[in-house]
């Protein structure tokens, strides 16, 4: 579209982010940095058992402890209906949500909240926790997804009825989904090569460095204010309102700066507890999770167990794929089985695809979204088996991907036909990239893999207020995790025709801006960006009207160019252009304040595709893997602020490398998490990684005035398979389970040696 050819003054430039100075000086207020006078402190008592009936809870001793102001248990929360509501990420079941924030009949995982205390100090609150006595009846537990699906497995929810399938008796399967395109039976008949494999991935935590934190203050008139680190202040409001039976109008949620989320802060844990404690205590209550609590009770994303079957002609045309993807959901239904299935082979034009998925409950914390939820898991299987297919066929793995690449007009296995997409471009660039032909040394290998994510739009509101001095304030409603304020300000500056540093973007609380869906699904720069662009256009329309009044001409006769109102043609009249500042100064007498506004449910998110190249070196004696070089190529639509787009790509790739190599939950025989800290939950450190070369391909999304596609999700999809494929290339050993940590890889290498010796 025409926007591609426009020369932009601000869009596409690398400006300093509006919140930058506060963040490099320590001024920025994150979740735990906020305090109120008279504030008291809340702590949570958590179950030490993976699965136990809560027979009774005696809080009397804790309540009697001097300094304790309030104690709550599940009895303080009203029961919720067991129905699915569209209220946040996926469908929300409030009956489950109230049980997740505070265990009711049973504790369902190690770390499950069973009571909370607010007291004058953290120390008193912790002492009070020790005085609460809980009578548990410990039940057998189940941690692994395959185990949970077996007959005779401990059942988490006796009453749970799976959707999408029929079973006799209780089950841990919450949901079964299927997607079918074409006829795989026929597809496999056409195949000359068929491969079938199983893969497994570990549950991994989002690993944001900032623990969950909240301050809640409920006044005597029932008006509540909540300050918290969240990806969606409006979702916090909705969830707290529903769980505590309060009207939304009585809750004002102000998002703090947020120290990472990646999907993990799209749900509530502490917010309803702090609000209820504050209501009971009559004082503001602050709650901060410890790192241990973050690991035991929040996040993660699902672990998965998969089987894949792929068929192809000798020429490399993939004729059919079948897959079964079983995802663990944690203690309550909600694993991203649907998206996992839909994304599995989305980068490819395959006529016959059948994928099914299971959402399975186990005794772990309930999963939350994590970057492209579901897709990295299914892609690990799909991109690994495609690599095996390439090897079997003797075709270069990128060549094979290109041969089967989805293009505009390809029908995806999950239904829709793709519009303008840039997958093939990412493969082309990868093939030509000097990384792909660079020489490799001994014990070194190279792997490639691709990935897909839908991206989303959603409800978005924005206001652009023109200030009296010709500057502007942009108010939006999405917490800024990775630089979105900069992108929004760049687009507003472009539309208004004023300098970037004259535009101040701020994030409104729930009472100061219209509803916004949460920051997630890579929607903010796209969807909220669109609302900001429309709000700026609304302001420009008003500015043109003011100029028309001054000139006594029809508003249609005025156009906006480079920050000035101008006559559309000489027929309108010969007027000196009026600058935004001039019109702003005259606003009081031309009709009052100039406030642009837009609110809409944004549709038309452009899907994102990526192809990654990874080089590794394997120490054959210890199983240690070094990432030597990494290149991530991605269709970004258009990069509004290229630095932060690169940052999303680099960060997502790094998280994927962690998922590939070392991140895992380690449970002991009692079902207790054995590694609830950054010491043994091993996210990549600076010395683990090379520079990550982010290559941005720009195939604009024609549903956005600047061509924006979401960029934050897809970079985490390819890395696990890219690393596994590189390890295979280096050693000849195929790792089919994550993480590929040194002990696991050495065991596999030794196994291969034994096998080779026997042959």
């Amino acid at each position: 579209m025409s926007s591609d050819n426009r020369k932009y003054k601000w869009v596409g430039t690398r400006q300093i982010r509006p919140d930058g100075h506060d963040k490099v000086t320590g001024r920025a207020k994150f979740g735990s940095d906020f305090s109120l006078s008279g504030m008291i402190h809340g702590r949570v008592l958590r179950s030490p058992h993976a699965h136990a009936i809560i027979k009774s809870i005696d809080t009397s001793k804790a309540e009697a402890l001097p300094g304790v102001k309030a104690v709550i248990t599940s009895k303080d929360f009203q029961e919720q209906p067991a129905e699915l509501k569209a209220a946040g990420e996926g469908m929300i079941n409030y009956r489950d949500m109230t049980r997740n924030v505070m265990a009711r009949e049973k504790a369902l995982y190690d770390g499950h909240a069973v009571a909370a205390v607010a007291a004058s100090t953290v120390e008193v609150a912790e002492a009070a926790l020790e005085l609460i006595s809980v009578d548990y009846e410990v039940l057998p537990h189940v941690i692994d997804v395959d185990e949970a699906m077996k007959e005779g497995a401990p059942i988490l929810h006796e009453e749970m009825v799976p959707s999408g399938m029929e079973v006799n008796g209780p089950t841990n399967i919450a949901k079964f989904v299927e997607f079918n395109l074409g006829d795989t039976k026929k597809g496999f008949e056409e195949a000359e090569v068929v491969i079938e494999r199983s893969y497994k991935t570990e549950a991994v935590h989002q690993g944001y460095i900032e623990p969950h934190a909240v301050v809640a203050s409920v006044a005597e008139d029932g008006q509540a204010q909540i300050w918290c680190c969240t990806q969606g202040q409006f979702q916090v409001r909705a969830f707290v309102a529903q769980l505590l039976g309060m009207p939304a109008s009585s809750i004002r949620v102000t998002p703090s700066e947020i120290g990472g989320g990646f999907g993990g802060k799209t749900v509530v844990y502490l917010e309803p507890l702090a609000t209820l404690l504050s209501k009971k205590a009559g004082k503001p209550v602050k709650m901060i999770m410890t790192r241990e609590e973050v690991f035991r009770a929040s996040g993660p994303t699902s672990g998965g167990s998969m089987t894949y079957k792929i068929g192809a002609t000798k020429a490399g045309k993939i004729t059919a794929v079948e897959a079964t993807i079983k995802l663990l959901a944690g203690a309550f239904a909600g694993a991203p089985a649907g998206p996992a299935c839909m994304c599995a082979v989305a980068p490819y034009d395959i006529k016959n695809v059948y994928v099914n998925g299971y959402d399975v409950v186990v005794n772990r914390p309930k999963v939350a979204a994590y970057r492209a939820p579901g897709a990295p898991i299914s892609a690990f299987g799909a991109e690994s088996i495609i690599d095996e297919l390439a090897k079997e066929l003797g075709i270069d793995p990128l060549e094979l991907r290109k041969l089967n690449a989805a293009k505009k007009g390809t029908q995806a296995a999950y239904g829709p036909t793709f519009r303008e997409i840039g997958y093939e471009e990412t493969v082309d660039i990868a093939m030509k990239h000097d990384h792909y032909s660079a020489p490799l040394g001994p014990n070194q290998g190279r792997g490639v893999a691709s990935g897909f994510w839908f991206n989303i739009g959603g409800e978005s509101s924005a206001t652009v207020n023109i200030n009296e001095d010709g500057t502007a304030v942009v108010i939006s409603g999405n917490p800024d995790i990775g630089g979105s304020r900069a992108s929004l300000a760049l687009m507003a500056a472009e539309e208004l025709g004023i300098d970037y540093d004259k535009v101040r973007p701020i994030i409104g609380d729930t009472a100061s801006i219209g509803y916004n869906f949460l920051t997630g699904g890579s929607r903010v720069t796209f969807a909220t960006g669109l609302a900001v662009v429309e709000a700026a256009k609304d302001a420009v329309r008003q500015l043109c009207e003011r100029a028309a009044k001054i000139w006594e001409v029809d508003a249609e006769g005025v156009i906006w160019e480079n920050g000035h109102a101008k006559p559309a043609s000489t027929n309108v009249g010969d007027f000196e252009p009026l600058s935004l500042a001039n019109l702003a100064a005259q606003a009081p007498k031309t009709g009052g304040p100039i406030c642009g506004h837009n609110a809409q449910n944004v549709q038309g998110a452009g899907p994102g595709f990526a192809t990654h190249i990874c080089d590794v070196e394997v120490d054959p004696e210890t199983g240690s893997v070094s990432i030597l070089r990494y290149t991530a190529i991605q269709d970004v639509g258009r990069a509004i602020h290229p630095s932060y787009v690169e940052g999303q790509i680099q960060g997502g790739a790094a998280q994927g490398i962690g998922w590939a190599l070392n991140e895992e939950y380690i449970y002991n025989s009692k079902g207790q998490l054995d590694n609830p800290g950054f010491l043994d939950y091993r996210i990549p450190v600076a010395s683990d990684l090379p520079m990550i070369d982010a290559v941005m391909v720009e195939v604009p999304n024609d549903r956005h005035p600047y061509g924006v596609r979401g960029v934050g999700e897809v970079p985490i999809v390819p890395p696990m398979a890219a690393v596994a494929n590189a390890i295979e290339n280096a050693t000849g050993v195929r790792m089919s389970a994550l993480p590929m940590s040194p002990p696991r890889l050495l065991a596999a290498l030794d196994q291969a040696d034994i096998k080779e010796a026997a042959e």
Partner: protein
Amino acid sequence: MVRVLLTDSISKSYTGGVSEFEIFVSNVRQLIRQLDEKYPGLGSEINNGALSISIDGDIYQDAFIEDLQPDSEITFLPKIGGG
């Protein structure tokens, strides 16, 4: 006639296995109403927000008011979130 494609999960649950059909409607409201008449429950499943609608490749998370073209292709898919 708008062409409707259904995934296996949906066709098994609501249409007795019919996964592709055509329907004469000019917007999503009409589509939802007619689907509910034809396959009870499917329309309301869309209307309560559990399903997104893809109209000619564009995914609408909460479709209702959108117009449809005579040659539009519709698919339903689980609602997408993200991290």
